[in-house]
């Protein structure tokens, strides 16, 4: 029915104005050198030349490293969690999933602020350690604090998609595998894990993408010297005022992420997302 086709027009206009246009503007700023205004801008690859400095490569590398560590930890902790949840009956499962979802609803800033209170040098963690007679540890403003904050934040994003895939699996398949002579490990790898792959990919992509571009958690838990890509971009836009350089970094970051996602998507046959 051709009637409904015109319903797409409002959003197409909206998308052009608010999705395409900003992206195009970022690209324009990345490839010019006019500073904040576009009026006296001329084509220039200065921003990209500046980026080649090895110290910026360090920032890229550190962001990727953080992303990988966070994703790995989330996977190692989250996969068992998702799997164990499926072992309970439906009603219990839905409550457990609900409990896993609720932290995601609580504002990110509020959750991060809570972690500051715990991890601070004079925070709860050290207060507890002191009362147990253990040396207090200084974890605030270090990479450890940032990773803890990131993992705690992104773990639900890893658990939920894996659980969704696993719950689609028919448990009788496992029994069939046992009947056919497989031991526990074989059955797990060949049946359960295989089924969970779409969910795993989903969770891994999501977590990695968010971790490498994280900005708030590194800033609050890592201090001014913990610079990831997100912090670098924010710094260029808010403090330094070098919108060209900031746009260039954003452009590279966006391209890298888009490529990573489309590459991983090709491996995943499921078209749902």
């Amino acid at each position: 029915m051709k009637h409904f086709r015109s319903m797409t027009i409002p959003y197409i206009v909206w998308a052009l104005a608010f999705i395409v246009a900003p992206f195009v503007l970022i690209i324009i700023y990345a490839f010019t050198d006019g500073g904040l205004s576009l009026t006296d801008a001329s084509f220039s690859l200065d921003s990209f030349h500046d980026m080649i400095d090895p110290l910026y490569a360090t920032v890229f590398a550190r962001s990727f490293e953080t992303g990988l560590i966070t994703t790995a930890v989330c996977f190692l902790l989250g996969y068992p969690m998702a799997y164990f949840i499926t072992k309970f009956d439906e009603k219990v499962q839905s409550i457990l999933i609900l409990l896993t979802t609720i932290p995601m609803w609580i504002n990110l800033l509020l959750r991060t602020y809570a972690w500051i209170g715990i991890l601070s040098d004079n925070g709860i963690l050290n207060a507890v350690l002191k009362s147990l007679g253990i040396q207090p540890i200084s974890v605030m403003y270090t990479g450890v604090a940032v990773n803890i904050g990131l993992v705690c934040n992104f773990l639900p994003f890893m658990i939920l998609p894996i659980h969704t895939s696993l719950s689609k699996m028919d448990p009788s398949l496992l029994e069939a595998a046992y009947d056919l002579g497989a031991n526990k490990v074989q059955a797990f790898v060949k049946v359960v894990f295989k089924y969970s792959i779409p969910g795993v990919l989903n969770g891994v992509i999501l977590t990695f993408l968010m971790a490498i571009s994280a900005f708030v958690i590194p800033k609050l838990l890592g201090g001014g010297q913990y610079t990831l890509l997100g912090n670098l971009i924010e710094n260029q836009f808010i403090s330094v005022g070098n919108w060209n350089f900031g746009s260039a970094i954003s452009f590279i970051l966006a391209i890298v992420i888009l490529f990573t996602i489309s590459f991983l998507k090709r491996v995943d046959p499921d078209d749902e997302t």
Partner: protein
Amino acid sequence: MKKFHTSKLLYGIYIGILFVFFYLPIAVTMFFSFNSSKSLTHFSGFSLRWYVNLITDREIVDAVWVSISIAILATLISTILGTLTSIGISKCRKVIRELFMNINNIPMMNPDIVTAIGFMILFSSLRIPKGYYTMLLAHITFCTPYVITSVWPKVKNLDPNLADAAMDLGATPFQALYKVLLPMLKEGIFAGALLAFTMSFDDFVISYFVTGNGVSNISIIVYNMTKRTNPTINALSTIVILVIFVTMFIVRFIPYIVRKNKKGRNHILHEEIN
């Protein structure tokens, strides 16, 4: 059989430990919101002073209103926009659909900081004064793709001839839409709306870059306040957490209650007939 039970216990313990990890900061925050002193480590006595502080602080109250109202408005508009668009796009040619879906995915796949500065550059270049409305526009923009992602799979599974059939039977296109298509997409629409609300209420980065004129939401206020220890934030967190808990449980268990009532009514009706 015995083995099964002990392994379930182990599973439960593991899950429990992870839940502690999730909820520890939340519990600690809530606990110290009732502290009579400023300390975030020593509990010196029960007090509601931080809650009083919270209610009397005009800045925080305004920010709460902004967070809530923008989340509600953005959810409503993006849900309507997203649903209608999902239905409409199903009637378009495949090429257009592919292109559209790719554009739609950009805000979701782009890191939020890139989306945020994109908006900031857009508003600055066009000299649009930043404030409440720019925040709303930005929120609608990043919420709608999530709605489309939830509704579109359901639209795909619908019988393409449903609307035609309805119209053949005399319904106007609007009636076909409202009375036939939408009810069938209820689940997807609801899921999409819920997702949109979460994304909007939780947002910080995008709001931070597109706001102006003194307009702040909860995230921005907390961000500005983290530099000094301030248990008023704990009080705010506690209220937000409680509201979320209550809402989630209501949302989850309303269907059960409704069904129970229906069953009860049917039972009485059944008895009356007999």
